[in-house]
C-alpha cells in the first residue's frame, strides 16, 4: 500500500502543474477561513468581524468551516482527472502495466492517493477549526469542543466520494478537460431529473430521489450552514425546522457511490485494450 502511494505521490509532486493545484487546494481554503476570522476594518466606515455573528463558536465552527472548505475541492478534482488524463496521453499507463504494475494496483494507487489527500485535508481543517474555535469561543471543556466533529468525518467522506467520481470520469473519457465537462453535465443532469420528477410528481418525492444522486448525496453530507445560523439568530427559530445533521443513511449512500466508482474504474481498465 505504501509502495503504491509513494508511486503516485512521485508522479504528482514532480509535476509542477499538479503541485501548484495541490498547494492551492490545501492552502486557499485555510487562508480564506483565517482571513475571514480576522477583524476587517473597512476604511473606518464599519468593522466586519464574522466572529461576532457566532460563526466561529463551537460546535458550529465544525459545520461552517467544513462547508466552506469543501467548496475548494474543485482544485484537487482537476489534479485527479489530470492524473488519469496524463497517464493516457503520455501512454505511461501502458508502460506502467508493461513494467509489472497490475491494473488493480494502478487503480488502487490512485485511490490511496485520494484517501491520503482527503485525510491530510481533514487533519488540516481539524487543526484550523480547533484554533479558530478556541480563539473565539469561551468553551474550553473537551466534550463540548468535540461535539459535532462528525462534520469532519462527513468532510473526509465527501472529498473521497467526489474525487472517486472524478477518477471514474477520468478513466471513462481519458481526457482531463472532457472529464471536468462531464462533471458539469452530471450536475446539470441531476437538476434536470429533479425538475422532471417535480413536474411529474411533486417536490417532496423529487427531493427524496435526488438525495440518492451522486453529487447531491455528497452535498447533503454537509448541508447549508446559513439556515442554521439564521435559525439560531431568529427569535422564533423553532418554527422552521431544518435538518442539517449528518445522518447514517447519507453516509451509506456516499460510501456506496464511492465503492461503485472505484469498482467501475477498475472494470473499465480491465476491459480496455491500451
Amino acid at each position, binding site marked *: 500500500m505504501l509502495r503504491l502511494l509513494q508511486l503516485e505521490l512521485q508522479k504528482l509532486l*514532480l509535476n509542477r502543474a499538479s503541485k501548484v493545484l495541490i498547494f492551492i487546494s490545501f492552502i486557499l481554503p485555510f487562508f480564506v477561513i483565517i482571513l475571514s476570522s480576522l477583524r476587517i476594518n473597512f476604511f473606518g466606515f464599519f468593522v466586519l468581524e464574522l466572529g461576532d455573528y457566532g460563526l466561529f463558536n463551537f460546535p458550529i465552527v465544525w459545520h461552517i468551516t467544513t462547508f466552506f472548505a469543501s467548496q475548494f475541492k474543485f482544485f484537487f478534482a482537476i489534479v485527479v482527472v489530470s492524473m488519469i488524463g496524463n497517464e493516457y496521453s503520455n501512454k505511461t499507463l501502458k*508502460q506502467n502495466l508493461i513494467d*509489472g504494475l*497490475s491494473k488493480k494496483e494502478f487503480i488502487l494507487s490512485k485511490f490511496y492517493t485520494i484517501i491520503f489527500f482527503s485525510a491530510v485535508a481533514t487533519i488540516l481543517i481539524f487543526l484550523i477549526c480547533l484554533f479558530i474555535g478556541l480563539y473565539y469561543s469561551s468553551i474550553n471543556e473537551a466534550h463540548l469542543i468535540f461535539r459535532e466533529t462528525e462534520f469532519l468525518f462527513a468532510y473526509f467522506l465527501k472529498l473521497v466520494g467526489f474525487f472517486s467520481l472524478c477518477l471514474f470520469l477520468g478513466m471513462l473519457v481519458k481526457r482531463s478537460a472532457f472529464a471536468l465537462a462531464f462533471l458539469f453535465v452530471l450536475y446539470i443532469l441531476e437538476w434536470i431529473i429533479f425538475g422532471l420528477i417535480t413536474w411529474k410528481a411533486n417536490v417532496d418525492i423529487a427531493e427524496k430521489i435526488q438525495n440518492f444522486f451522486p453529487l447531491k448525496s455528497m452535498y447533503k453530507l454537509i448541508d447549508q450552514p446559513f439556515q442554521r445560523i439564521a435559525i439560531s439568530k431568529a427569535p422564533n427559530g423553532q418554527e422552521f425546522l431544518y435538518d442539517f445533521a449528518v445522518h447514517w443513511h447519507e453516509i451509506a449512500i456516499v460510501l456506496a457511490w464511492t465503492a461503485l466508482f472505484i469498482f467501475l474504474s477498475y472494470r473499465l481498465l480491465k476491459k480496455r*485494450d*491500451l
Partner: protein
Amino acid sequence: MESILTINNLTKKFGYLTAVKDLSFTINKGNVYGILGPNGSGKSTTLGIVLNVVNETAGDFHWFDGNVSTHDALKKVGAIIERPNFYPYMTAHQNLKLVCKIKGVDYSKIQEKLEVVGLLDRKDHKFKTYSLGMKQRLAIASALLNDPEILILDEPTNGLDPQGIHQIRQIIKDIANNGTTILLASHLLDEVEKVCSHVVVLRKGEKLYSGRVDEMISSHGFFELKTEKQDELIHLLENHKSFGNIKVEDTLITAFLNDPMDAETFNKLMFDKGIILSHLVKRKESLEEQFLQLTDNN
C-alpha cells in the same frame, strides 16, 4: 529446455477484424527470437497481449512455468514497445526511479544501466528535452533495470537515424551476447537476420513458420553461374536430377538444388563436361528472399 513464454491458440478480434488468429509458439531460454511480418500482421497485438495491455479474445498464454501471475512475471521481463513512454516532466533518473519502485528493484541499478546506454551525463535532464534516439536508449535502460530474463523489443529502431539505429543494434547485440533471451518484433528483415537465431513469421495474424532461421525453407541453396557456353550449360542443368528450377537473367544463370551438392563437386562435373565457368557462387537464400517466398506461397 526451460521455457519462458508459452502461447496457446491465441486469438484477438477487434470487431470484425481478426488481428491474431489461433497463434501458438514457445519461447525458450537463451535464444534470440524474431517475430517477422508485414505491417498489420499482428506482431504488436501479440506482444500487447502477453504484456498485459491487450485482452485476448480466446486462447491463453503463460510466463515461465505458469505459476506466477502475469503482472508478477512482467517484473522479470524487460519490454520496449513502439515508442518510449515516460513522464515528460521527470528527469531520466526520476523516471527510472519510478520503474524501480514498480518492479521492486534497487535504485543502485539506475546508475549502472544509464551507463550501459550512454546517458549518464544527461541523467538529470528532463525527458522532454531528449532526442528520439536518447528516448529510445532510456527505454532500453529502463527495460534492463531488473536484469530481465527476457527482453522484448517491438520495432526498436523505428524512426531513428542511421547512427541511432546502429547504437541500438550494438546494444541489442551486447545484451544477446550476455545470454539474455530476446524477442524482437520487426518488419526490417536485415535487423532480424543480424541478431536472431529463431523466427516466427506472421501474416494477417496467422503463423506461417516458427523455428530456426536457417531451417526456414528446406532448401539446399543455389548456384549462380556464368559461362561462354550458356546454352550447353542450361541443357546440361535441365537434364541433371540434382537441379530443379533454373532461372536465366542476361548472362547470369541461377540453378536451384534439389539435393545437396558442394561447389567443388559441381565445378569438377562442369570441367569434365568441357564447360568452363567464369563465375561460380554457391548461396543460400537470404532471410528476405526466404520471407518473401514464404509469404507469397501461402
